[in-house]
């Protein structure tokens, strides 16, 4: 049942009960006063009339009594009879003229009227004077009073309830608005705000509602911004990863070109240079020396190019796996730098996926080559360790430490490594090994949680 209906019923019920109690009390009071009045009037009239009738009877006999009674007429609240000794009615007092022809409803009379007391006097000559209480006029007065009171009460009831209903309707008017507002919010219209609502509580609810809506809207906006940022980051990572793939493809092509085409050209250049050295050297010593220098330089170029090929395209990552490729990397560089102690410690899961495998390999490779080229170390330690959550690559040397300008963008290829690691959501750090110098290169890449 609606609150409004309920409150209305309560107000109506209470006021009706009040009116009923009021009228009941009034009826009760009226009954007492009617009884009191009836009894008293009967007493007074009876004793007075009884005495007079006795006197008249003694002086003038029955006729005088009759004349006296006839002159007396109606006495309020009483019926007066004169009975002959035979029992025949000699005289009956006339009906009251007060509110003649009207009387209270029977049920009301029955409710109010006392048992009519009757007082009888024996007169001389055997006549009987009967004075009987007749409360109908009093009852009628009471009835009229109560009817009037009821009319006023009914009018008041209507007015009071009308007012109550109206003010309740006014007070409860904000509730449907609030409900509609909650529905709007629920449907996702987070920008919706309640209008200014009349009434202290309604206004308080309105303000609380609007604060809540604002908070929800802010939170959703912040979440959306975070989600957008996340999506953008993801997109950027995908782009970076795509770019990396392209770069790797390109590196492979370049490696292929180096091996098959450039290498052949260098062989040709050396052959030509040596041809000049052999033929021309006979005639011109200096020319022969120059040709030989070209050949020697081309030989170095050839070696450098073939050194580049595994750096460009560690194809064996796909086929031999990370462990074997790292071992081969260290073995290769150890052969070129027999005086430097290289160590490789690795313990990692085999199934890292191509991007992480390549990133780990690149970090180890670049770290090692940088150390060998720039740090003048006596030893370089490479460590590749993984657990369930991450794989950590460290390249630590005991060389001369970081040059001042190492952080310059693009320097030593470290930036590329940092980006590659960052694209995989990892951490990349380069720092001093300790106070005595040396460099510690550290990369940590989170492993996707396997489900």
């Amino acid at each position, binding site marked *: 049942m609606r609150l409004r209906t309920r409150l209305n019923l309560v107000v109506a019920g209470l006021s009706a009960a009040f009116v009923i109690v009021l009228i009941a009390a009034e009826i009760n009071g009226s009954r007492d006063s009617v009884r009191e009045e009836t009894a008293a009037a009967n007493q007074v009239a009876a004793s007075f009339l009884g005495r007079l009738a006795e006197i008249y009877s003694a002086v003038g006999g029955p006729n005088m009594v009759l004349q006296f009674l006839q002159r007396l007429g109606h006495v309020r609240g009483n019926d007066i009879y004169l009975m002959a000794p035979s029992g025949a009615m000699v005289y009956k007092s006339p009906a009251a003229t007060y509110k003649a022809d009207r009387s209270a409803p029977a049920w009301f009379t029955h409710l109010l009227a006392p048992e009519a007391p009757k007082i009888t006097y024996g007169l001389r000559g055997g006549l009987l004077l009967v004075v009987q209480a007749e409360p109908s006029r009093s009852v009628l007065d009471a009835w009229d009073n109560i009817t009037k009171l009821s009319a006023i009460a009914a009018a008041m009831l209507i007015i009071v309830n009308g007012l109550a209903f109206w003010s309740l309707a006014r007070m409860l008017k904000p509730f449907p608005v609030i409900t509609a507002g909650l529905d709007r919010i629920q449907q996702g219209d987070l920008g919706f705000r309640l209008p200014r609502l009349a009434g202290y509580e309604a206004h308080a609810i309105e303000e609380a509602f609007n604060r809540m809506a604002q908070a929800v809207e802010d939170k959703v906006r912040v979440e959306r911004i975070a989600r957008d940022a996340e999506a953008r980051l993801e997109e950027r990572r995908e782009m970076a990863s795509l770019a990396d793939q392209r770069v790797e493809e390109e590196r492979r092509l370049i490696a292929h070109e180096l091996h098959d*085409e450039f290498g052949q050209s260098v062989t040709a250049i050396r052959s030509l240079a040596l041809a000049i050295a052999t033929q021309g050297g006979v005639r011109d010593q200096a020319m022969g020396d120059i040709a030989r220098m070209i050949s020697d330089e081309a030989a170095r170029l050839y070696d450098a190019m073939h050194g580049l090929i595994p750096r460009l395209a560690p194809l064996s990552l796909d086929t031999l796996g990370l462990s074997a490729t790292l071992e081969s990397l260290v073995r290769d560089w150890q052969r070129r730098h027999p005086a430097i102690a290289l160590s490789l410690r690795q313990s990692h899961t085999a199934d890292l996926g191509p991007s992480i495998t390549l990133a780990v390999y690149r970090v180890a490779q670049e770290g090692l080559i940088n150390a060998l080229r720039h740090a003048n170390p006596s030893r370089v330690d490479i460590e590749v360790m993984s657990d369930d959550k991450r794989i950590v690559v460290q390249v630590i040397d005991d060389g001369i430490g970081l040059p001042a300008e190492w952080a310059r963008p693009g320097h030593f290829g470290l930036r590329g490594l940092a980006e590659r690691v960052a694209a995989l959501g990892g951490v990349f750090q380069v720092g001093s090994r300790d106070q005595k110098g040396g460099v510690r290169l550290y990369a940590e890449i989170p492993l996707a949680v396997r489900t």
Partner: protein
Amino acid sequence: MIRIMLVDDHAVVRTGFRLLLQSRADMSVIGEAESGEAAYQGYVESKPDVVVMDLAMPGMGGLEALRRIRARDPQAKVLTLSAHDDAAHVRHALREGALGFLSKRSAPETLLDAVATVAAGRRYLDAAIAQKLALSAFDGVATTPVDRLSEREFEVFVRLARGATVQRIAQDLNLSASTVGTHLYNIKQKLGAVTQSDLTLIAIRHGVIEA
């Protein structure tokens, strides 16, 4: 006068070698070819004293050309060259009848010596390759599964390991696809390989192809 035929798919390499060889009064380049097929034709036509041949060429390749030339003329003197200077390549070339093997790395310096040696009917290996062969024998890898392949199988194996299809290999080597299929079957048996990528893996492990 040593009459020489140069076989290499790179014209500039042939030019370099030719000029180098012709700097010697006793050597003359009488023919050039840029493929295995042309090498065989040229050999039949001009009968050179020495063939200097790159193993890696498009088409039938050097090893197959070597085999055909040797089949036609068992006395043919062939000096093979390769940018791939692993022991397996060298062994297979020598087994197929090549008298010498040079890596392209050292070819320019050693070519003249090598040609002279081979022309005299003696074997020639450049120092780096000789060392590699000796070491691989010393390390006990002389009889790797790869060495147990026949020459033909080795050739098919190298091509498979590089990712070529059976059809392609059949076309290049002028064989029927079913013959190549039989080779493939035997190769897998001998190497204990199941898939083509197993073959690539084995090839890289034994340095037959570059990682």
